[in-house]
């Protein structure tokens, strides 16, 4: 293990590449987190099962890719309605069983924890614990710009993720339903005056949050081979990013994701990959303890 003091001896190109890798990774993390930013950040629904749905998305991309040879990203776009419907159903159950009865804290948390666990174990039972991966033309080659190495395997997910984030931000700020979603957390009365049922708005928002998991899952399996328990590592990441970015802000999510990506990339470059999982959770613990309103919160 090296010590931080030795950082000065690290070659310049390693440093630059770690930074670039961190940015690419961070952009991808934003796609995984944006669903949580909507459900936890905006709707105040602590959906810890979100990473489970991301892994589910990975496996669907994997099955269709290996059986039929379709591109994983296209598969995930085709799966959006299915995940949207899944999200709508889950919200309906959550609302009827916990939210309406005012039992959303203890039992709601246990519910999502159970869903996460059931998804993971079911995937283990069907596919086993072997790592699975997909095939696509952009997995493998790299673009080299000077000393910077840009693997397409990272660059493509980065671009898709940025498009997803930009699309969601436009939707939330420019459309009627989007603005209603942003308002739902703060002012249910105003929402009723706009003649929108809060439950319906929340259902749409939650369904969208689950739909993003389809895309995030495809991106995940492009970046790395996936096995069912990979989702657990992402629980810390997504909540760390969500809290860092100031709960419910989409641009904040992107910035938080980039910061965590860079931090993790530097950790694994300079300390070794076995320490990387602790970074996200360590950041999460620190942020929760000292800055729960996020770095950009008031």
């Amino acid at each position: 293990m090296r010590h931080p003091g030795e950082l000065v001896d690290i070659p310049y190109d390693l440093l630059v590449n770690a930074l670039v890798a961190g940015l690419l990774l961070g952009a991808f993390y934003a796609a995984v987190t944006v669903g949580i930013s909507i459900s936890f950040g905006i709707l105040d629904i602590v959906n810890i099962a979100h990473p489970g749905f991301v892994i589910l998305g990975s496996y669907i991309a994997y099955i269709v890719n290996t059986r039929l040879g379709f591109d994983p990203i296209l598969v995930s776009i085709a799966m959006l309605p299915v995940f949207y419907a899944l999200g709508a159903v889950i919200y309906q159950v959550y609302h009827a069983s916990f939210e309406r009865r005012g039992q959303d804290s203890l039992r709601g948390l246990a519910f999502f924890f159970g869903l996460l666990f059931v998804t993971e174990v079911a995937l283990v039972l069907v596919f086993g614990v072997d790592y699975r991966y997909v095939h696509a033309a952009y997995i493998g080659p790299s673009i080299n710009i000077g000393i910077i190495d840009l693997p397409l395997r990272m660059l493509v997910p980065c671009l898709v993720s940025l498009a997803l984030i930009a699309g969601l931000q436009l939707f939330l700020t420019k459309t009627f339903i989007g603005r209603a979603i942003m308002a739902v957390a703060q002012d249910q009365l105003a929402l009723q005056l706009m003649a929108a049922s809060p439950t319906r708005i929340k259902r749409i928002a939650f369904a969208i949050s689950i739909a993003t998991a389809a895309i995030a899952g495809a991106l995940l399996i492009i970046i790395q081979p996936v096995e069912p328990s990979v989702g657990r590592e992402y629980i810390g990441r997504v909540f760390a990013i969500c809290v860092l970015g100031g709960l419910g802000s989409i641009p904040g999510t992107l910035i938080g994701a980039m910061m965590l990506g860079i931090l993790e990339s530097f950790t694994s470059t300079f300390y070794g990959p076995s320490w990387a999982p602790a970074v996200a959770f360590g950041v999460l613990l620190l942020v929760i303890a000292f800055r729960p309103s996020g770095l950009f919160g008031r």
Partner: protein
Amino acid sequence: MRSSTFILLCTVVAAFVFAAIRWVGNDYLFVAGYVVLQFIVLATAWNILGGYTGYVNFGSAAFFALGAYSSIFFNKAFPLPVPLLIVIGGVVSGIVGLGMGYLTLRLRGAFFAIGTLALAIVLQTLVTNWRYVGGARGAYVIRPGEIEFLGPYSQYLFLLMLALAVIALSIARGIERSQLGYGFATIRDDELAAEASGVPTLRLKLIATTISGGLMGMAGAPFPYYLGYVQPSAAFGLEYAVNSIAMPMIGGTTSWVGPLIGAILLATLQQWATVTISSELGVLIVGVLLVSFVILAPKGIVGLVEGWRRKKAGS
């Protein structure tokens, strides 16, 4: 019933269970029974925080593993008898529980839950990278084959866990009937109103996390001796977190009986599934039961039975 009577009764039942298994004479029953007892302690401990105050701990595995790894550490540094290791494991986990609570309990409940999840992963990474306690590959402990006066070592561990279960249940029941349990209930119902009524909520929550974490650590301390071998992925297994939530939720969270019933049912079910089908299927059933119960029977088995009895009395 007075607490002393309850403890006496528990001890009698425990002695009877031990005698019965010895009479059957099948050593596997001690090995399987140990696991059931261990889950009784874990579920009861989880419920002291989760059921009584309403704060969800997803990091049961972390507290359990803290107990197991403090045993590994002392086993290498200066070997001590297992009962003493249980006390040490309890103290270590209790202190971590207190620290964890102090950092996150001033915030909304969700942050505590997420924080405990984070704690489990941070600790697992630390242990995985700590060579002294075996790192990722794990560590062996040499356990004696026989214990004087008693016989096989598995019976000795079984007895220790049996005693821990009696202690855990007595603590839980004691809390329920004390002023402390009364304060816990006000926190679960409405924290703001509790403060306004003069309940020192933060202090009570810290007491709950400390007791709960400490008991989980105690349950984990004999674990290396039970297996003879511990690796991080086993000690930090997600099934500990899931089971210690599922058992009280399925049994019923408002009294000590619920976690006891839930633990006996689910742990036995999993032991049976592991032997006959596969352990994955066993834990899948636990997950499905957890989700079904929180949706359909929010008060657990205890609530179902109470409802059924009320209906019968009413008709």
